[in-house]
Protein backbone atom coordinates (compact mmCIF):
# COMPACT_ATOMS: atom_id res chain seq x y z
CA UNK A 1 0.00 0.00 0.00
CA UNK A 2 2.67 2.42 -1.06
CA UNK A 3 3.29 4.22 -4.31
CA UNK A 4 6.19 6.02 -5.89
CA UNK A 5 5.97 9.72 -6.75
CA UNK A 6 6.88 10.55 -10.35
CA UNK A 7 10.68 10.66 -10.55
CA UNK A 8 12.27 13.18 -12.88
CA UNK A 9 15.84 12.45 -11.85
CA UNK A 10 18.10 10.24 -13.88
CA UNK A 11 18.93 7.75 -11.16
CA UNK A 12 19.58 4.30 -12.57
CA UNK A 13 17.19 1.39 -12.58
CA UNK A 14 18.01 -1.65 -10.43
CA UNK A 15 16.88 -5.22 -11.06
CA UNK A 16 16.47 -7.64 -8.16
CA UNK A 17 14.22 -10.44 -6.94
CA UNK A 18 11.93 -10.72 -3.94
CA UNK A 19 11.19 -14.33 -3.03
CA UNK A 20 12.14 -15.34 -6.55
CA UNK A 21 9.93 -12.75 -8.28
CA UNK A 22 11.65 -10.12 -10.42
CA UNK A 23 11.26 -6.49 -9.44
CA UNK A 24 12.62 -3.18 -10.59
CA UNK A 25 13.65 -0.34 -8.32
CA UNK A 26 15.53 2.90 -8.30
CA UNK A 27 19.16 3.32 -7.33
CA UNK A 28 19.10 4.52 -3.73
CA UNK A 29 16.05 2.48 -2.69
CA UNK A 30 16.61 0.36 0.40
CA UNK A 31 15.54 -3.27 0.62
CA UNK A 32 12.89 -2.34 3.19
CA UNK A 33 11.50 0.34 0.89
CA UNK A 34 11.16 -1.98 -2.11
CA UNK A 35 9.54 -4.64 0.06
CA UNK A 36 6.88 -2.17 1.13
CA UNK A 37 6.47 -0.87 -2.39
CA UNK A 38 6.00 -4.41 -3.69
CA UNK A 39 2.67 -4.54 -1.88
CA UNK A 40 3.70 -6.79 0.98
CA UNK A 41 1.94 -5.85 4.19
CA UNK A 42 3.87 -8.23 6.41
CA UNK A 43 7.53 -8.75 5.55
CA UNK A 44 8.42 -11.21 8.31
CA UNK A 45 7.05 -12.90 11.44
CA UNK A 46 7.84 -12.28 15.10
CA UNK A 47 10.33 -14.49 16.92
CA UNK A 48 8.10 -15.97 19.61
CA UNK A 49 4.54 -16.33 18.27
CA UNK A 50 5.18 -15.93 14.53
CA UNK A 51 2.89 -12.92 14.21
CA UNK A 52 3.09 -10.84 11.03
CA UNK A 53 5.43 -7.85 11.25
CA UNK A 54 6.59 -5.06 8.94
CA UNK A 55 9.23 -2.32 9.03
CA UNK A 56 8.39 0.23 11.73
CA UNK A 57 11.14 2.84 12.03
CA UNK A 58 13.01 2.66 8.69
CA UNK A 59 16.21 3.95 10.31
CA UNK A 60 17.89 0.83 11.67
CA UNK A 61 16.56 0.95 15.21
CA UNK A 62 13.56 -1.40 15.43
CA UNK A 63 14.92 -4.53 13.68
CA UNK A 64 11.47 -5.29 12.26
CA UNK A 65 12.79 -5.13 8.69
CA UNK A 66 14.96 -8.27 9.05
CA UNK A 67 15.31 -10.02 5.73
CA UNK A 68 17.66 -12.43 3.95
CA UNK A 69 19.84 -10.72 1.34
CA UNK A 70 21.95 -12.80 -1.04
CA UNK A 71 21.72 -15.79 1.26
CA UNK A 72 22.66 -14.01 4.48
CA UNK A 73 19.80 -13.88 6.97
CA UNK A 74 18.69 -11.38 9.61
CA UNK A 75 19.95 -8.31 7.76
CA UNK A 76 18.36 -4.93 8.40
CA UNK A 77 16.69 -4.19 5.09
CA UNK A 78 16.39 -0.46 5.76
CA UNK A 79 20.18 -0.09 5.81
CA UNK A 80 20.92 -1.91 2.57
CA UNK A 81 20.61 -0.26 -0.84
CA UNK A 82 19.27 -2.53 -3.60
CA UNK A 83 21.81 -3.65 -6.18
CA UNK A 84 21.54 -5.39 -9.54
CA UNK A 85 21.04 -9.12 -9.17
CA UNK A 86 20.28 -8.90 -5.47
CA UNK A 87 18.22 -11.82 -4.09
CA UNK A 88 15.89 -10.69 -1.35
CA UNK A 89 14.07 -13.38 0.62
CA UNK A 90 11.56 -12.65 3.34
CA UNK A 91 11.77 -14.62 6.58
CA UNK A 92 8.23 -15.85 6.82
CA UNK A 93 8.93 -18.70 9.22
CA UNK A 94 10.64 -18.33 12.59
CA UNK A 95 14.13 -17.79 11.33
CA UNK A 96 16.84 -19.14 13.54
CA UNK A 97 20.21 -19.30 11.88
CA UNK A 98 21.78 -16.72 9.56
CA UNK A 99 22.81 -18.42 6.31
Amino acid at each position, binding site marked *: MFRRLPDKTAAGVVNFTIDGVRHVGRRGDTVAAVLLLSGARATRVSAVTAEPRAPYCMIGVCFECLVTVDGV*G*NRQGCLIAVANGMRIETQKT*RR*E*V*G*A
Partner: protein
Amino acid sequence: MSEATRSPLPDVIVIGGGIQGCSTALHLARRGVKVLLIEKDHVGRHASGVNAGGVRRLGRHFAEVPLSVASMEIWQSIKDLVDDDCGFESHGQIKVAETEAELATQRARVERTRLLGFTHEELIGQAELRDLVPAIAPNCVGAIICRSDGAAMPYRTTLAFKRKAESLGARILEGVHVTALKHIGQVWRVESEDGTHEAPIIVNCAGAWADRIAAQLGEPVPLEVIAPMLMITARMPAFVKPVIGAQGRTLSFKQYDNGTVLIGGGYRGRPNRDTNWTDLDFGKLADNARTAAALFPIMAGAEIVRAWAGIEARMPDDIPVIGPSLTSEGVFHAFGFSAHGFQLGPAVGRVMAELITTGATNVPIDGFGIGRFDTVRAA
Protein backbone atom coordinates in the same frame (compact mmCIF):
# COMPACT_ATOMS: atom_id res chain seq x y z
CA MET B 1 18.90 6.87 66.21
CA SER B 2 19.92 4.76 63.22
CA GLU B 3 18.20 1.51 62.36
CA ALA B 4 21.36 -0.35 63.23
CA THR B 5 21.23 0.64 66.86
CA ARG B 6 17.49 0.20 67.12
CA SER B 7 17.21 -3.40 65.85
CA PRO B 8 18.80 -6.25 67.85
CA LEU B 9 22.46 -6.92 67.17
CA PRO B 10 22.97 -9.49 64.43
CA ASP B 11 24.86 -12.62 65.36
CA VAL B 12 26.70 -12.60 62.05
CA ILE B 13 27.49 -9.93 59.47
CA VAL B 14 28.09 -11.28 55.97
CA ILE B 15 29.99 -8.95 53.64
CA GLY B 16 29.04 -9.48 50.00
CA GLY B 17 25.76 -10.47 48.36
CA GLY B 18 26.88 -12.89 45.68
CA ILE B 19 25.94 -16.55 45.76
CA GLN B 20 28.41 -17.35 48.55
CA GLY B 21 27.16 -14.54 50.78
CA CYS B 22 23.48 -15.20 50.13
CA SER B 23 23.92 -18.93 50.60
CA THR B 24 25.76 -18.34 53.87
CA ALA B 25 23.02 -15.97 55.03
CA LEU B 26 20.35 -18.54 54.14
CA HIS B 27 21.99 -21.48 55.87
CA LEU B 28 22.63 -19.41 58.98
CA ALA B 29 19.04 -18.14 58.99
CA ARG B 30 17.79 -21.72 58.74
CA ARG B 31 19.66 -22.39 61.98
CA GLY B 32 17.98 -19.46 63.67
CA VAL B 33 21.06 -17.26 63.49
CA LYS B 34 20.40 -13.51 63.12
CA VAL B 35 22.18 -12.40 59.96
CA LEU B 36 22.87 -9.00 58.46
CA LEU B 37 24.24 -9.12 54.90
CA ILE B 38 25.81 -5.94 53.52
CA GLU B 39 26.17 -5.70 49.73
CA LYS B 40 27.76 -2.72 48.00
CA ASP B 41 25.66 -2.88 44.81
CA HIS B 42 22.69 -5.23 44.56
CA VAL B 43 22.59 -8.94 45.24
CA GLY B 44 24.00 -10.89 42.30
CA ARG B 45 25.37 -7.78 40.61
CA HIS B 46 28.78 -9.24 39.81
CA ALA B 47 30.22 -12.68 39.07
CA SER B 48 27.36 -14.54 40.72
CA GLY B 49 24.70 -12.90 38.59
CA VAL B 50 26.34 -12.91 35.17
CA ASN B 51 28.29 -16.17 34.87
CA ALA B 52 27.56 -19.05 32.50
CA GLY B 53 25.42 -20.80 35.11
CA GLY B 54 27.35 -24.05 34.86
CA VAL B 55 26.35 -26.54 37.55
CA ARG B 56 29.09 -29.12 37.33
CA ARG B 57 31.21 -31.51 39.20
CA LEU B 58 33.07 -32.38 36.00
CA GLY B 59 36.74 -31.55 35.77
CA ARG B 60 37.08 -29.97 39.21
CA HIS B 61 40.36 -29.61 41.07
CA PHE B 62 40.45 -32.57 43.44
CA ALA B 63 40.37 -30.32 46.49
CA GLU B 64 36.98 -29.07 45.31
CA VAL B 65 35.41 -32.42 44.45
CA PRO B 66 33.91 -33.26 47.87
CA LEU B 67 32.41 -29.77 48.15
CA SER B 68 31.12 -29.99 44.58
CA VAL B 69 29.55 -33.39 45.12
CA ALA B 70 27.89 -32.17 48.31
CA SER B 71 26.61 -29.10 46.50
CA MET B 72 25.22 -31.18 43.67
CA GLU B 73 23.00 -33.01 46.13
CA ILE B 74 21.55 -29.68 47.17
CA TRP B 75 21.04 -28.67 43.53
CA GLN B 76 18.99 -31.81 42.91
CA SER B 77 16.34 -30.46 45.28
CA ILE B 78 17.09 -26.74 45.14
CA LYS B 79 13.41 -25.89 45.04
CA ASP B 80 12.94 -27.33 48.51
CA LEU B 81 15.70 -25.09 49.81
CA VAL B 82 14.89 -21.75 48.19
CA ASP B 83 11.32 -22.12 46.85
CA ASP B 84 12.56 -21.68 43.27
CA ASP B 85 13.88 -24.19 40.77
CA CYS B 86 16.46 -21.55 39.76
CA GLY B 87 16.13 -22.62 36.14
CA PHE B 88 18.26 -25.68 36.93
CA GLU B 89 18.31 -28.23 34.16
CA SER B 90 20.48 -31.30 34.06
CA HIS B 91 21.18 -32.68 30.63
CA GLY B 92 24.74 -33.50 31.55
CA GLN B 93 28.09 -31.82 31.07
CA ILE B 94 30.51 -33.21 28.51
CA LYS B 95 34.19 -32.37 28.01
CA VAL B 96 35.25 -33.52 24.55
CA ALA B 97 38.62 -34.91 23.55
CA GLU B 98 39.64 -34.10 20.00
CA THR B 99 42.72 -36.33 19.87
CA GLU B 100 43.78 -39.70 21.25
CA ALA B 101 46.31 -37.97 23.45
CA GLU B 102 43.58 -35.84 25.01
CA LEU B 103 41.45 -38.95 25.50
CA ALA B 104 44.34 -40.67 27.25
CA THR B 105 44.65 -37.73 29.63
CA GLN B 106 40.94 -38.00 30.28
CA ARG B 107 41.15 -41.75 30.90
CA ALA B 108 43.84 -41.17 33.52
CA ARG B 109 41.76 -38.49 35.15
CA VAL B 110 38.65 -40.66 35.39
CA GLU B 111 40.71 -43.48 36.91
CA ARG B 112 42.07 -41.13 39.51
CA THR B 113 38.63 -39.89 40.49
CA ARG B 114 37.51 -43.50 40.95
CA LEU B 115 40.50 -44.20 43.17
CA LEU B 116 39.47 -41.25 45.32
CA GLY B 117 36.04 -42.81 45.69
CA PHE B 118 34.07 -40.64 43.26
CA THR B 119 31.96 -42.01 40.45
CA HIS B 120 30.46 -38.92 38.87
CA GLU B 121 32.91 -38.78 35.94
CA GLU B 122 32.70 -41.37 33.14
CA LEU B 123 34.69 -41.80 29.96
CA ILE B 124 32.72 -42.26 26.75
CA GLY B 125 33.90 -43.19 23.28
CA GLN B 126 33.23 -41.63 19.92
CA ALA B 127 30.06 -43.56 19.21
CA GLU B 128 28.30 -42.52 22.38
CA LEU B 129 29.63 -38.95 22.04
CA ARG B 130 28.16 -38.66 18.53
CA ASP B 131 24.94 -40.09 19.81
CA LEU B 132 24.66 -37.58 22.63
CA VAL B 133 26.04 -34.60 20.68
CA PRO B 134 25.33 -35.17 16.97
CA ALA B 135 26.40 -31.64 16.06
CA ILE B 136 29.95 -31.98 17.41
CA ALA B 137 32.84 -31.86 14.93
CA PRO B 138 33.38 -35.39 13.57
CA ASN B 139 37.04 -35.55 14.56
CA CYS B 140 36.22 -35.68 18.30
CA VAL B 141 37.23 -39.09 19.66
CA GLY B 142 35.54 -39.27 23.03
CA ALA B 143 34.78 -37.36 26.18
CA ILE B 144 34.33 -37.25 29.93
CA ILE B 145 30.70 -36.99 30.91
CA CYS B 146 28.88 -36.20 34.14
CA ARG B 147 25.39 -37.24 33.26
CA SER B 148 23.51 -35.31 35.91
CA ASP B 149 25.51 -32.09 35.74
CA GLY B 150 23.81 -29.18 34.00
CA ALA B 151 23.22 -25.46 34.31
CA ALA B 152 20.99 -22.95 36.09
CA MET B 153 20.21 -19.25 35.91
CA PRO B 154 22.75 -17.37 37.98
CA TYR B 155 20.92 -14.16 38.83
CA ARG B 156 17.69 -15.93 39.52
CA THR B 157 19.48 -18.39 41.80
CA THR B 158 21.26 -15.69 43.78
CA LEU B 159 18.02 -13.74 44.16
CA ALA B 160 16.20 -16.88 45.34
CA PHE B 161 18.79 -17.47 48.05
CA LYS B 162 18.49 -13.84 49.13
CA ARG B 163 14.70 -13.91 49.29
CA LYS B 164 14.56 -17.16 51.17
CA ALA B 165 17.11 -15.87 53.65
CA GLU B 166 15.02 -12.75 54.19
CA SER B 167 11.89 -14.80 54.69
CA LEU B 168 13.72 -16.62 57.48
CA GLY B 169 14.70 -13.40 59.21
CA ALA B 170 17.98 -12.38 57.54
CA ARG B 171 18.37 -8.67 56.84
CA ILE B 172 19.91 -7.73 53.50
CA LEU B 173 21.28 -4.22 52.99
CA GLU B 174 21.98 -3.29 49.38
CA GLY B 175 23.79 -0.30 47.95
CA VAL B 176 26.00 -0.03 51.04
CA HIS B 177 29.81 -0.18 50.98
CA VAL B 178 31.72 -1.50 53.97
CA THR B 179 34.46 1.04 54.66
CA ALA B 180 36.27 -0.35 57.69
CA LEU B 181 36.41 -3.26 60.13
CA LYS B 182 37.51 -2.87 63.72
CA HIS B 183 37.64 -5.38 66.54
CA ILE B 184 36.33 -3.84 69.73
CA GLY B 185 36.30 -6.26 72.65
CA GLN B 186 34.28 -9.33 71.65
CA VAL B 187 32.62 -7.65 68.76
CA TRP B 188 33.44 -6.57 65.22
CA ARG B 189 32.46 -3.06 64.30
CA VAL B 190 31.67 -2.76 60.63
CA GLU B 191 31.69 0.81 59.38
CA SER B 192 29.66 1.48 56.29
CA GLU B 193 27.89 4.15 54.32
CA ASP B 194 24.80 3.17 56.28
CA GLY B 195 26.40 3.77 59.63
CA THR B 196 28.00 1.31 62.01
CA HIS B 197 26.93 -2.29 62.46
CA GLU B 198 28.28 -4.70 65.03
CA ALA B 199 28.39 -8.45 65.39
CA PRO B 200 30.66 -11.01 67.01
CA ILE B 201 31.13 -12.84 63.70
CA ILE B 202 32.01 -11.63 60.20
CA VAL B 203 32.00 -13.64 56.98
CA ASN B 204 34.05 -12.24 54.12
CA CYS B 205 32.21 -13.14 50.90
CA ALA B 206 33.32 -10.02 49.10
CA GLY B 207 34.40 -11.69 45.86
CA ALA B 208 36.69 -9.51 43.76
CA TRP B 209 36.96 -7.08 46.67
CA ALA B 210 37.61 -9.68 49.37
CA ASP B 211 41.33 -9.04 49.46
CA ARG B 212 40.64 -5.54 50.74
CA ILE B 213 38.70 -6.98 53.66
CA ALA B 214 41.40 -9.60 54.26
CA ALA B 215 44.12 -6.93 54.13
CA GLN B 216 42.37 -4.98 56.89
CA LEU B 217 42.60 -8.12 58.98
CA GLY B 218 46.33 -8.48 58.39
CA GLU B 219 45.90 -11.29 55.87
CA PRO B 220 46.96 -9.89 52.49
CA VAL B 221 46.03 -12.46 49.84
CA PRO B 222 47.33 -12.48 46.24
CA LEU B 223 43.87 -12.08 44.68
CA GLU B 224 43.65 -11.21 41.01
CA VAL B 225 40.63 -9.38 39.61
CA ILE B 226 39.53 -10.91 36.32
CA ALA B 227 36.70 -10.41 33.87
CA PRO B 228 35.89 -13.68 32.06
CA MET B 229 33.87 -12.91 28.94
CA LEU B 230 30.70 -14.52 27.61
CA MET B 231 28.69 -14.17 24.39
CA ILE B 232 25.09 -15.06 23.63
CA THR B 233 23.60 -15.69 20.22
CA ALA B 234 20.21 -15.16 18.63
CA ARG B 235 17.89 -18.18 18.59
CA MET B 236 19.11 -21.23 16.68
CA PRO B 237 17.41 -24.55 15.94
CA ALA B 238 17.92 -26.96 18.86
CA PHE B 239 21.16 -28.90 18.28
CA VAL B 240 22.76 -29.60 21.64
CA LYS B 241 21.40 -30.51 25.05
CA PRO B 242 24.35 -31.11 27.37
CA VAL B 243 26.74 -28.33 28.37
CA ILE B 244 29.94 -28.77 26.38
CA GLY B 245 33.56 -28.12 27.22
CA ALA B 246 36.75 -29.25 25.55
CA GLN B 247 39.84 -30.93 26.95
CA GLY B 248 42.29 -29.14 24.69
CA ARG B 249 40.62 -25.76 24.26
CA THR B 250 39.01 -23.25 26.48
CA LEU B 251 35.35 -23.40 25.72
CA SER B 252 32.09 -23.60 27.56
CA PHE B 253 29.08 -23.96 25.36
CA LYS B 254 25.41 -24.26 26.19
CA GLN B 255 22.15 -23.98 24.28
CA TYR B 256 19.04 -22.87 26.19
CA ASP B 257 15.53 -24.15 25.56
CA ASN B 258 14.72 -20.90 23.77
CA GLY B 259 17.41 -21.74 21.21
CA THR B 260 19.99 -19.12 22.17
CA VAL B 261 23.55 -20.35 22.63
CA LEU B 262 25.88 -19.15 25.38
CA ILE B 263 29.56 -19.23 24.53
CA GLY B 264 32.23 -18.85 27.18
CA GLY B 265 35.75 -20.00 27.67
CA GLY B 266 37.33 -17.82 30.25
CA TYR B 267 38.87 -15.39 27.79
CA ARG B 268 39.50 -12.27 29.80
CA GLY B 269 38.32 -8.73 29.37
CA ARG B 270 39.70 -5.78 31.33
CA PRO B 271 37.98 -5.11 34.67
CA ASN B 272 37.97 -2.02 36.82
CA ARG B 273 36.71 -3.03 40.23
CA ASP B 274 36.42 0.55 41.45
CA THR B 275 34.02 1.61 38.72
CA ASN B 276 32.29 -1.76 38.24
CA TRP B 277 33.31 -1.51 34.60
CA THR B 278 34.62 -4.15 32.22
CA ASP B 279 36.02 -3.52 28.75
CA LEU B 280 35.63 -6.44 26.37
CA ASP B 281 38.52 -7.67 24.26
CA PHE B 282 37.19 -8.50 20.82
CA GLY B 283 40.48 -9.92 19.63
CA LYS B 284 40.07 -12.65 22.23
CA LEU B 285 36.36 -13.06 21.56
CA ALA B 286 37.33 -13.67 17.95
CA ASP B 287 39.42 -16.60 19.13
CA ASN B 288 36.51 -17.79 21.23
CA ALA B 289 34.32 -17.59 18.14
CA ARG B 290 36.81 -19.62 16.07
CA THR B 291 36.92 -22.31 18.76
CA ALA B 292 33.15 -22.56 18.92
CA ALA B 293 32.89 -22.87 15.15
CA ALA B 294 35.69 -25.47 15.05
CA LEU B 295 33.88 -27.73 17.49
CA PHE B 296 30.37 -27.01 16.19
CA PRO B 297 30.36 -26.26 12.47
CA ILE B 298 26.72 -25.13 12.68
CA MET B 299 27.91 -22.11 14.67
CA ALA B 300 29.40 -20.46 11.60
CA GLY B 301 25.96 -19.01 10.86
CA ALA B 302 25.24 -17.91 14.42
CA GLU B 303 24.64 -14.27 15.33
CA ILE B 304 26.13 -12.73 18.46
CA VAL B 305 23.66 -10.35 20.04
CA ARG B 306 25.51 -9.51 23.23
CA ALA B 307 28.81 -10.03 24.99
CA TRP B 308 29.67 -9.24 28.60
CA ALA B 309 32.04 -9.95 31.44
CA GLY B 310 31.53 -10.14 35.18
CA ILE B 311 34.03 -9.05 37.81
CA GLU B 312 35.46 -12.10 39.50
CA ALA B 313 38.26 -13.01 41.88
CA ARG B 314 40.96 -15.48 41.01
CA MET B 315 43.49 -17.06 43.34
CA PRO B 316 46.88 -18.10 41.92
CA ASP B 317 46.11 -21.84 42.37
CA ASP B 318 42.59 -21.46 40.93
CA ILE B 319 40.83 -22.71 44.06
CA PRO B 320 38.96 -20.61 46.61
CA VAL B 321 39.73 -19.41 50.12
CA ILE B 322 37.29 -21.05 52.55
CA GLY B 323 37.72 -21.21 56.28
CA PRO B 324 38.51 -19.26 59.39
CA SER B 325 40.72 -16.22 59.46
CA LEU B 326 44.20 -16.89 60.81
CA THR B 327 44.57 -13.52 62.45
CA SER B 328 41.12 -12.58 63.61
CA GLU B 329 38.84 -14.33 66.04
CA GLY B 330 35.29 -14.61 64.76
CA VAL B 331 36.10 -13.96 61.09
CA PHE B 332 35.54 -16.45 58.31
CA HIS B 333 36.36 -16.29 54.60
CA ALA B 334 34.62 -17.65 51.49
CA PHE B 335 35.94 -15.95 48.37
CA GLY B 336 38.22 -16.31 45.35
CA PHE B 337 36.23 -18.91 43.44
CA SER B 338 38.26 -18.32 40.28
CA ALA B 339 35.41 -18.41 37.75
CA HIS B 340 33.84 -21.65 38.96
CA GLY B 341 32.13 -20.89 42.25
CA PHE B 342 28.50 -20.82 41.19
CA GLN B 343 27.85 -24.57 41.51
CA LEU B 344 29.63 -24.65 44.85
CA GLY B 345 27.52 -21.87 46.37
CA PRO B 346 24.73 -23.96 47.92
CA ALA B 347 27.20 -26.16 49.82
CA VAL B 348 29.62 -23.37 50.69
CA GLY B 349 26.86 -21.60 52.58
CA ARG B 350 26.08 -24.76 54.52
CA VAL B 351 29.75 -25.34 55.30
CA MET B 352 30.13 -21.75 56.56
CA ALA B 353 27.01 -22.12 58.72
CA GLU B 354 28.35 -25.39 60.17
CA LEU B 355 31.75 -23.86 60.86
CA ILE B 356 30.24 -20.85 62.53
CA THR B 357 27.68 -22.63 64.67
CA THR B 358 29.55 -25.85 65.55
CA GLY B 359 33.19 -25.07 64.89
CA ALA B 360 33.53 -27.85 62.33
CA THR B 361 32.23 -29.16 59.01
CA ASN B 362 32.33 -32.66 57.58
CA VAL B 363 33.20 -31.49 54.10
CA PRO B 364 37.00 -31.40 53.75
CA ILE B 365 38.10 -27.78 53.35
CA ASP B 366 41.72 -27.90 54.55
CA GLY B 367 42.99 -27.29 51.03
CA PHE B 368 41.27 -23.91 50.97
CA GLY B 369 42.93 -22.33 53.99
CA ILE B 370 43.99 -18.72 53.71
CA GLY B 371 47.35 -19.64 55.23
CA ARG B 372 48.50 -21.41 52.09
CA PHE B 373 49.71 -18.14 50.56
CA ASP B 374 53.21 -16.82 51.22
CA THR B 375 51.82 -13.30 51.48
CA VAL B 376 49.61 -14.29 54.40
CA ARG B 377 52.27 -16.32 56.19
CA ALA B 378 54.75 -13.49 55.87
CA ALA B 379 52.38 -10.88 57.23
